[in-house]
């Protein structure tokens, strides 16, 4: 947190719908600020307009490290919505059992369906989710990735795709 920004985890106990946040600083409460909480709100972590995602070889996906078609891209996001195995607010997600998103989800890269193999919380982290996505057959270039959960489409984030059988997808 800082004087201008506080990063926090929205409590799991918050009900979807109208909400109000009050920041109390050393006993002085701010006026309430109204906003809306959605059941799900997928948001991919960004570096500029590029998604923060790991290629199959562990490198960070970018123009210099694209992933080949058919490779598995691990995209980091938050706001996946309800989970099959609940985690306490503020607590790190466990690895056993995994917590998977229960609402319908899908992804597209460059407008093409990109199958999601796993969407759920990243073990060891708070409020952090990951989507393991199979990259569709696309030519080399940057493409918008859109993840949709529970009918709510997240903001598009670019991912870099390389030539088939080359680059970070080698060994897939």
């Amino acid at each position: 947190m800082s004087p201008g920004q506080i990063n926090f985890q929205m409590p799991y106990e918050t009900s979807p719908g109208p909400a109000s946040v009050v920041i109390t600083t050393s006993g002085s409460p701010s006026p309430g600020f109204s906003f809306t909480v959605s059941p799900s709100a997928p948001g991919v972590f960004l570096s500029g307009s590029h998604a923060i995602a790991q290629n199959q070889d562990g490198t960070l996906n970018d123009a210099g490290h694209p992933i080949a078609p058919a490779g598995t891209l691990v995209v980091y996001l938050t706001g996946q919505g309800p989970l099959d195995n609940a985690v306490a607010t503020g607590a790190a997600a466990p690895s056993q059992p995994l917590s998977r998103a229960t609402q319908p989800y899908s992804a597209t890269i460059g407008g093409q369906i990109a199958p999601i193999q796993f969407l759920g919380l990243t073990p060891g982290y708070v409020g952090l989710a990951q989507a393991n996505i199979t990259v569709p057959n696309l030519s080399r270039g940057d493409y918008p990735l859109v993840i949709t959960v529970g009918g709510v489409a997240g903001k598009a984030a670019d991912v870099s795709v390389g030539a088939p059988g080359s680059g970070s997808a080698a060994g897939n």
Partner: protein
Amino acid sequence: MTQFMKIMKTFGLAVLMWYAVTNPASAQMNDIKTVFIIVMENHDWAQIKNSLSAPYINQTLLPMASYAEQYYNPPRIHPSLPNYLWLEAGTNFGIGNDSDPKINHQGTTAHFVTQLRDAGVSWKTYQEGITGTACPLASSSQYAPKHNPFIYFDDVTNANDPNSAFCIAHVRPYGEFAPDLKSDAVARFVFITPDLCDDMHDSCSPLEDPIRQGDTWLSNEIPKILGSAAYQSGGAIFIVWDEAENGDGPIGMIAISPFAKGGGYSSTTHYTHGSTLRTLEEIFGVLPLRDAASQTDLSGLFKQAGATGATVAGVTNGASFSSDVAPGALASVFGTNLALATASAASLPLPAFMGGI
């Protein structure tokens, strides 16, 4: 994943906390409704502050707290018992040893918890290591009477009666504290004495590091208080050391409260145990006793009325910064005066309170 964490830090998202909506309250010390005081043992502030053995105090508590840099035990008052008596009565009654109540008991009713009783304010002490089946007038295992000032007063113990119902009702095992917190059944004045391993007094296995033992204990126990209704609806936690290891101090005094200035605020005002007693007496509206009447209270650690509050300008998804947020998601609040300083959570689970926020 390591690479991911680097990226997270780049974007400031390693700084995470979950928020709590608290009730509006005035920003004055005198608006405190419930006091929790925890007494630690036998270390100079210089041994605690920045100590690698005290990561919870230094990385979590101090950034959210107000604390004193010049807090002393009363001049040449040692060992433990006279300092505990001073916190309760503003004097050591001439006592300069740690003997049990059968030797050092006092007949006066002029002491703090009797002031509270007369004012209709509830109080209770939670002592780690007692059974709760008798008034604990003698040492047992890691419990030491010398760290429990209340049992030195005849009006509490019915003159050293181990079966004193009043004593037994007010001097309770620490194990009852968490359930009382959870059921919102704590008294308005709560005095907590960890046992000799947990209050930094003794070196105990497996850590064999008194400071780390106490720091670990605080890291386990303070979050329970912070998460309680009693704290969130107007509580204050004071963590104070009884006496210096070298001379008279400085020793530690940490104040955590929605009403405290917080944010790691430190004061160089000269304080003593008389200051703490005076502060407690002011909070509960009773007259200062003995030395407390001539000491400076701890109001300097608390926020004064009329301070500028925070203004929230927006709430966003913590990843994409779109307006979509969901339960359990990481999110960001933007605005002005949201915090007194920059701070980040040092451990999991994420704290509900940080830096006075």
